C-alpha cells in the first residue's frame, strides 16, 4: 500500500509527473476539482481591455432582436398591474379576495415574497465580500440590481393594502394637527423603518459599486466623440418597415458622456481615491450584513409577535432569513442563466463553476428551510397547544394542502437533485430548479399567511380565501415591473463590476503571479 503526501502530488504535477489535472474539466474548463490549483475566475485568458469591451459593449450597442419584444411584453404586464392598482384605489380593497377571516392574503404574500428575493443581492455583495469569496464578482452587480427592483415591487403592496392609501403617510413620524403619532411598539412600524432603510442602503451600495464603471463608460463615449466617430445622430426606426420614426438632435455618445459622466461624479481612478473607496465598500458590506439579517427578522416579527397559531413561533426570524436567501439565489439563477445564453461573452465571466457554487447554496438553504418546516411541526406537537397542533394538521391535510405540498415539493424535494454533480453543473437543470424554488417560496408565504388565518379558534370563524382576477393581475404586474427594470438594467448599465473583476484577474496582481491562479490571497504579507 503506497501513501501520498499532498505536496508530493503538487510537486509531481509541476514536474510533469503522472498526477496531472484531469483533461476534462467540464464544459467550460472551470470545474476543476484538483485542490492544488484554482479554477480561473475569468475564462479564455481575457485581457483587462477585453473585460471592458465585453461589459461596455453590451451597454453601448443594441441588444439582439429578442430584447424589444420581451421588453414590450413585460412593460405591458407592468401596465396592466398598474391599472389594477388604480382600480383598487378607486374602488376599495373589496376588489381583492380578502374577507373578515383572511385579512391578509396575496398582498402580504407578495410583499414577503419580493422582499425575500432582494436578500440574495445583499448577501452576495456584503456577506460574500466579508468572507473574501472572489467568485461573487461574477454575479454581484446583477444581484444588487435585482435587490433594488425586488424591494421596489415589495414596497407597492404594504402601501396599497392599507385601503385608504392617501393616509399612508400616517406610518411616518410626521408632526401634524391631528396629533397622531405612529405606534413604535408595533412590528408593522419597525417594518416601515427596516424596509425603507434596506431599500436606501441597497441603492447606495449598488450606486457606489457602479461609480468606477460609469467612469469607464463615460471615458469610452468621450473617446469616440473626440475621434469624431460617435457623432451619428440618434434615431428610432420602425422595427418592421425600417422607416425613421423619431430623430434626436444629439448623438447617442453625447448623451452617454453626459449621463454616465454625471453619475460617475468625476471619478478618475486615483489610487488615493480607491483606498477610501475600498474602505467605504468594506464598511457598507459590514453594516449591510446585520441589516439584511435584521430586515427579514423584522418582517417575520409581523407574524411572530401575534397570537395566531401558526404565526406565534420563535423560529420565524432565522427561518425567514434562510428562506429569503434561498428564494433570492433562485431568482439570481433564474435571471442570469438566460442572460448568459443571450449575451454569449458573459459565459467567460459567469462560469459553470459559479453556477455550481450557487446551486450548492440552493441545496444548503433548501435543507435549512426544510428543517424549519419540520421543526415547526415538531414544536406544534411538543408545545402541547392543541390550537397549534390543529393548525399544522390543517396546513398539511386541510383545504390548502395542495399549497402546502407544492411548497414542500418545490423547496425541499426539488433542490435535492443538486447532490448529483452532473445536475448542479447543467445550466438547464439549475434553471428549472430555480424556477421551481421561486414558485415554492411564493407558496411558502401563502401557506404561512392564509392557512394560519383561515381557521381561527372558533369553528364559527372558519372561512376560505380565493384570489380574484384583480389579485392575480396585480401580482403579475409586479413581476412585469421587476422584469422590465431588469431588462433596462441589462441594456444600459454595466452588468458586471468591471473594476472588481479586473482586480481579481492574474493581470491585476501587482506581484505578477500570472497563470490562471485566480484566487489566492496569501502572496501579500504587508500589514494593513
Amino acid at each position: 500500500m503506497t501513501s501520498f503526501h499532498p505536496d508530493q502530488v503538487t510537486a509531481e504535477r509541476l514536474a510533469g509527473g503522472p498526477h496531472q489535472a484531469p483533461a476534462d474539466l467540464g464544459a467550460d474548463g472551470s470545474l476543476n476539482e484538483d485542490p492544488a490549483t484554482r479554477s480561473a475566475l475569468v475564462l479564455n485568458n481575457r485581457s483587462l481591455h477585453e473585460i471592458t469591451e465585453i461589459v461596455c459593449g453590451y451597454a453601448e450597442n443594441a441588444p439582439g432582436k429578442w430584447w424589444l419584444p420581451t421588453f414590450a411584453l413585460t412593460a405591458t404586464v407592468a401596465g396592466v398591474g398598474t391599472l389594477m392598482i388604480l382600480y383598487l384605489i378607486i374602488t376599495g380593497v373589496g376588489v381583492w379576495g380578502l374577507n373578515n377571516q383572511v385579512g391578509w392574503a396575496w398582498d402580504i404574500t407578495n410583499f414577503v415574497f419580493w422582499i425575500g428575493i432582494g436578500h440574495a443581492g445583499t448577501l452576495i455583495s456584503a456577506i460574500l465580500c466579508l468572507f473574501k469569496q472572489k467568485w461573487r464578482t461574477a454575479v454581484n452587480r446583477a444581484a444588487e440590481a435585482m435587490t433594488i427592483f425586488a424591494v421596489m415591487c415589495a414596497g407597492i403592496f404594504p402601501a396599497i393594502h392599507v385601503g385608504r392609501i392617501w393616509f399612508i403617510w400616517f406610518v411616518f413620524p410626521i408632526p401634524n394637527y391631528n396629533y397622531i403619532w405612529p405606534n413604535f411598539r408595533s412590528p408593522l412600524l419597525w417594518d416601515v423603518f427596516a424596509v425603507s432603510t434596506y431599500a436606501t442602503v441597497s441603492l447606495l451600495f449598488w450606486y457606489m459599486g457602479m461609480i468606477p464603471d460609469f467612469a469607464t463608460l463615460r471615458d469610452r463615449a468621450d473617446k469616440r466623440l473626440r475621434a469624431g466617430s460617435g457623432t451619428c445622430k440618434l434615431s428610432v426606426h420602425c422595427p418592421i418597415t425600417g422607416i425613421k420614426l423619431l430623430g434626436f438632435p444629439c448623438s447617442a455618445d453625447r448623451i452617454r458622456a453626459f449621463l454616465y459622466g454625471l453619475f460617475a461624479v468625476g471619478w478618475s481612478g486615483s489610487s488615493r481615491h480607491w483606498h477610501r473607496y475600498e474602505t467605504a465598500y468594506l464598511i457598507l458590506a459590514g453594516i449591510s450584513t446585520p441589516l439584511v439579517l435584521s430586515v427579514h427578522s423584522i418582517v417575520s416579527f409581523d407574524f411572530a409577535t401575534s397570537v395566531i397559531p401558526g404565526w406565534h413561533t420563535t423560529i420565524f426570524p432565522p427561518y425567514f432569513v434562510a428562506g429569503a436567501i434561498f428564494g433570492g439565489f433562485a431568482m439570481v439563477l433564474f435571471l442570469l442563466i438566460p442572460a448568459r445564453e443571450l449575451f454569449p461573452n458573459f459565459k467567460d465571466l459567469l462560469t459553470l463553476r459559479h453556477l455550481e457554487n450557487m446551486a450548492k447554496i440552493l441545496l444548503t438553504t433548501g435543507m435549512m428551510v426544510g428543517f424549519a418546516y419540520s421543526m415547526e411541526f415538531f414544536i406544534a406537537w411538543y408545545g402541547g397547544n392543541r390550537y397549534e397542533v390543529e393548525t399544522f394538521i390543517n396546513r398539511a391535510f386541510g383545504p390548502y394542502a395542495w399549497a402546502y405540498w407544492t411548497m414542500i415539493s418545490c423547496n425541499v424535494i426539488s433542490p435535492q437533485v443538486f447532490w448529483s454533480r452532473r445536475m448542479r453543473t447543467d445550466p438547464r437543470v439549475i434553471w428549472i430548479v430555480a424556477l421551481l424554488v421561486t414558485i415554492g417560496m411564493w407558496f411558502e408565504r401563502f401557506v404561512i399567511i392564509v392557512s394560519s388565518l383561515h381557521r381561527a379558534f372558533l369553528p364559527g370563524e372558519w372561512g376560505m380565501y380565493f384570489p380574484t382576477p384583480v389579485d392575480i393581475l396585480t401580482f403579475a404586474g409586479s413581476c412585469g415591473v421587476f422584469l422590465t427594470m431588469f431588462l433596462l438594467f441589462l441594456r444600459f448599465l454595466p452588468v458586471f463590476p468591471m473594476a472588481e473583476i479586473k482586480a481579481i484577474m492574474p493581470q491585476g496582481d501587482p506581484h505578477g503571479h500570472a497563470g490562471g491562479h485566480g484566487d489566492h490571497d496569501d502572496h501579500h504579507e504587508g500589514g494593513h
Partner: protein
Amino acid sequence: MAASDYLPFIRRPKPGFVTETGEPVWGVMAQFDTTVDAYHAAEKMRDAGFKHWDLHAPFPIHGIEEAMGQKRTILPFIVLGAAFTGIATAIGMQWWITAVDYAGFTVQGKPYDAWEPFTMIIFELGVLFSAFASLFGMLALNGLPRWHHPLLCKERFLASSDDKFFVVVEARDPSFNPEQTSRFLREIGASAVELVEDA
C-alpha cells in the same frame, strides 16, 4: 484639492511653469502598461519623496497604499460618528414621542418609556446614517463630485479607466520640474510621458 478647483471666481495661484504655447502647466503624467510596472513605479515615486502625486488605475491595486506610502483614511471615524448620530436620533424620536408627547395614553398596557421595542428602529437608523456617511463621506474626502479635471482633458488618460496606469505628478509638488520629473518618470519605466496643461 484646492478651493479654486471648485469655485471659478476664486483666483488660481500663479502658475510656476508654462508650456511652449503659454498654457499653465498642471503637472505631468506617465503611462505604465502593466499592474506590476505601476506598482514598482509607485514604490519608486514614494522613495523619491514626491508629495503631490498619484497613481490612476482602472481598479484598486492590492496593497498599493503601502507602495504609495498613503496614510489610512479617517472615513471609519466619520461613519462611527454618523452611526451614533443615527442611534441618538432614533432614541430621541421614539422616547420623546412615546414617553413625553404621548405620556398619558397607555398603549398595549406597557410602561410609557419601555425601551425594548425601540431597539429595532435604533439599529435601523444607526445603519441608515452610517450608509449615507460612508458613501458621501468617501466622496467628500476624495473631493468629489468634480466634473472637470485637467487630466480628463487628455485623450491618452481616458485609458486609465480601461487597462492603463498613470503616475501623475502635480506642478505644486515642491520638487516638480517639467523636464526633470519627466526624465525621472521615463527612468522608472514609463511607456509614455506627457505634460498636462491646466485646462
